[in-house]
């Protein structure tokens, strides 16, 4: 196990400050993240999961796991879970790749806005995504009503929803921004000289892409795929509703059934253990593949950064706008659906409606509603923003520290840690929720403590994201840079701050944006840990829907979209301006 360390130490340790100092420094750096993960996540989770080994007679036994593994139904739903996650991942990456290329290589007006808009699906709770899809693509949706007007037919001309395709479509809508964001920020930093060299030698553009660029993108593609796969693996609301029912059942549905409907926490724990085993196995495979395939990549230093071209060739001029239009329709359609619904008020029984800002007035307390205190939106927005901003900062800090430790990927210890850091994404949120009951029970009381707990839980949830966006980039930093800095007399911590961190800016910005978005949209942990003392935007939205007010929820969803768009646009402009 220590062999890897040893080799590095002997082979490359030549600076004034040795590699030993370095590895100590990075070990120390990663400590807070490890402590947080352990106490807020690993320990409560282990307590819940240990219930999987409680036998019928309350003694220790493997009978629950054994009966699960021997049940054909378990394998059937596991197979479906894997298939839908795999297809969704492939489609999301395929959709994101051209976009990542465009963002990484061209300069055009509106680029920032596009990048910002693409992150938005991510902040929306799944119920709102379902509604957005139905409002836009549904049998009675915007698209079908337009087509009906044109064709004059009574029947909905386009039946997209309630099929397997609709599930994949919704997953792609949700997840292709991950591919787009992670791959494009990695691509931007890729040296272009190899491609240029290949072209000079007569290679065609596509050949260059296939043989030179694509292999170099592998780390980023794998990173994005892992995240998307894990997301889709635990999806269930979207799958049931848009897939049309129990024909499409994932493991998560069965975990939910046991934990919430049949009061079988032990059964839920057993099933969850099985699903964790499968996902971790797959993540481990990914990490292994990434290690085997990715070469130590040289990084374009900021000075030589490739000039972004303007689209010049005829092909680029035609294909680019087409892709942009298709993506815009795809992403903006359901978002538009939500916004559209939020400004509609029914005026007649037959379903006619007219434009009105009534729901917004109610949300912001400008219009009193009988028997209810409606003016919660303002404080919910402020609280959500604070929590999300702190989460973004903290998860960025923690993930960067972890990444510093994991970059060397020398031993199996590092591999274990990397797996461990991915764990929050691999565990069913229903089971994590049960774990949080235990945490919440230990910390009764004050509101500030609850806020801190919610923030920390968000950090745990968001960290795998930030880690996956930073790590591939960190591993690209040539060891010679670090060595040079040490040789020139800088301390290890100076090197980290002045040499390594600045090279990670782009990846850090992407990670922070996602972390912010995850926190803005998070609901499960917030509900459990805050005991309802903290009211965030998704909680208000959920409550509005629970009390029949779907239009009000869409109005708040629109506010959420707007707030995130503004925040992302600001971050994006800061991140841009630093380069120029």
């Amino acid at each position, binding site marked *: 196990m220590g062999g890897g360390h040893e080799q590095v130490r002997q082979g490359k340790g030549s600076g004034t400050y040795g590699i030993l100092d370095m590895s100590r420094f990075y070990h120390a750096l990663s400590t807070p993240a490890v402590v947080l993960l352990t106490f807020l996540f690993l320990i409560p989770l282990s307590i819940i999961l240990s219930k999987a080994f409680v036998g019928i007679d309350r003694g220790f036994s493997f009978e629950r796991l054994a009966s699960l593994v021997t049940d054909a139904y378990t394998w059937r739903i596991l197979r479906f879970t894997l298939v839908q996650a795999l297809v969704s991942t492939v489609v999301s990456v395929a959709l994101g790749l051209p976009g990542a290329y465009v963002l990484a290589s061209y300069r055009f007006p509106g680029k920032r806005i596009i990048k910002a808009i693409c992150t938005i699906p991510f902040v929306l709770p799944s*119920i709102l995504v*379902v*509604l957005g899809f*139905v409002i836009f693509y*549904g*049998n*009675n949706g915007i698209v079908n009503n337009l087509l009906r007007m044109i064709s004059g037919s009574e029947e909905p001309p386009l039946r997209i929803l*309630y099929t397997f395709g609709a599930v994949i479509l919704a997953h792609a809508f949700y997840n292709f921004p991950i591919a787009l964001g992670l791959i494009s920020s990695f691509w931007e930093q890729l040296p272009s000289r190899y491609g240029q060299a290949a072209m000079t030698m007569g290679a065609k553009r596509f050949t260059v892409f296939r043989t030179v660029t694509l292999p170099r993108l592998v780390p980023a593609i794998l990173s994005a795929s892992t995240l998307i796969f894990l997301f889709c693996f635990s999806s*269930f609301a979207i799958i*049931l*509703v848009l897939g*049309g*029912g*129990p*024909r499409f*059942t994932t493991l998560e*549905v069965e975990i*939910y*059934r046991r934990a*919430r409907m*049949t*009061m079988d*926490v032990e059964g839920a724990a057993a099933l969850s253990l099985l699903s964790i085993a499968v996902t971790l196995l797959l993540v481990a495979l990914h990490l292994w593949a990434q290690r085997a395939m990715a070469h130590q990549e040289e990084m374009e230093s900021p000075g030589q950064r490739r000039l972004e071209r303007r689209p010049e060739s005829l092909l680029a001029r035609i294909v680019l706008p087409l892709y942009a239009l298709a993506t815009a329709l795809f992403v903006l359609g359901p978002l538009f659906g939500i916004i559209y619904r939020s400004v509609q008020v*029914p005026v007649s*029984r037959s*379903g006619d409606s007219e434009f009105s800002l009534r729901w917004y007035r109610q949300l912001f307390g400008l219009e009193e*509603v009988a028997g*209810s*205190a*409606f003016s919660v939106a303002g404080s919910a927005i402020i*609280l959500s923003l*604070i929590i999300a901003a*702190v989460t973004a*900062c903290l998860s*960025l*800090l923690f993930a960067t520290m972890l990444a510093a430790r994991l970059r060397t990927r020398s031993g199996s210890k590092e591999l274990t840690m990397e797996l461990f850091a991915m764990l929050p994404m691999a565990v069913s949120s229903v089971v994590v*929720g049960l774990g949080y*009951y235990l945490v919440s*029970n230990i910390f*009764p009381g*004050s*509101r*500030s403590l609850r806020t*801190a707990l919610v923030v920390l839980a968000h950090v745990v949830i968001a960290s795998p994201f930030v880690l996956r966006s930073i790590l591939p980039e960190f591993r690209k930093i040539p060891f010679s840079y670090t060595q040079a800095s040490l040789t020139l007399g800088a301390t290890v911590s100076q090197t980290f*701050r002045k040499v390594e*961190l600045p090279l990670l800016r782009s990846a850090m910005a992407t990670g922070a944006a996602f972390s912010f978005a995850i926190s803005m949209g998070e609901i499960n942990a917030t*509900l*459990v840990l805050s*005991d*309802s*003392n903290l*009211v965030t935007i998704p909680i208000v939205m*959920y*409550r509005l*829907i*629970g*009390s*029949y*007010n*779907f239009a009000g929820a869409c109005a708040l969803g629109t506010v959420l979209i707007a707030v995130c768009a503004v925040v992302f646009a600001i971050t994006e402009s800061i991140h841009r301006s630093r380069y120029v």
Partner: protein
Amino acid sequence: MKKHCLSLVLAVLLIPATIWAGGKSEQSEDARQSITVYAYDSFVSEWGPGPLVVPAFEKKTGIAVNLVSAGNGGELLSRLVLERNRPQADVVIGISDELLSETVASDLLLPYESAALSQIPAFLHFDPTYALLPFNYGNYAFVYDSAKVTEVPRSLDDLLDPRWSKSIILMDPRTSSVGMGLLEWTVAAYGDAWLEWWKKVKPNVLTIADGWSSGYGLFTEGEAPLVISYTTSPVYHVLYEDSDRYRAVVFDAGNMAVIEGAGILRSSRNIDAAKQFIDFLLTEAQADIAVANIMYPVNQTVELPAAFDFAPKPQVSLMLESERIAKNRDTWLTEWVEVMSK
């Protein structure tokens, strides 16, 4: 850069901490004068009964109430069971008759025969041990869009008619209590032959949603003209949208009932205050709860707004014995999945 980031983090962390430090002092009040109440989230929410009921109770009795949102449906009971060794709550609100067997078996609740029970009709006394006391109830019903449906179905059998092809939105009983309610309804109506109804209804089902929220949302978006919900659902549209477009239908053979219960924890150190709260819940709070939850009050002396005229009361409220539910729930679900996933 890291320094900046750290100080920023600290600053942002401190702001909320100072703002809410005030909330802490409430905790230190005399323990005898306060109770902790666990309820489902929509009870606690801005639009739920909590913000109306709690201040009224506090004003009347001087007992402070710490209302905690502790999950929905089965989560409430799971949480109480998980907290068995470190109990926090004095009162729990919102465990339905569905989970009566499990609740009684957990032995966490203290039986209490409130005097207010005399104002509640006998069929609502769902727990003969009175560990759970009824505080509101509803009937599951199919809600239809009167702009599209002219000939209203009058029975579960009517829903099997081919004219409803892809016209009904249901919910998955594995993830939704309303979905479970319909499953039990078919068991109550057809006995052992209940699965036949499900086999036949399949072609008429547009989709089976994960929960009531998404299912009902699809319905109001006009995806299908029929949805499983409650007899009281139209009240919302009348009260807040001034529309009587969506209507519930009661069946001649009866509609499945769901009764929500509240109870006192044995571990409570404020049994007397907890009892006062339950009494209040069953009497003075009834109208507020009914209107905010859009459910029927259990107390027959309560006067309701006119909008409740749009919530038709079925002649028969169907129910299943709780032991039967507890014993068969898992088997039913497995059989249901078997039929519906083909």
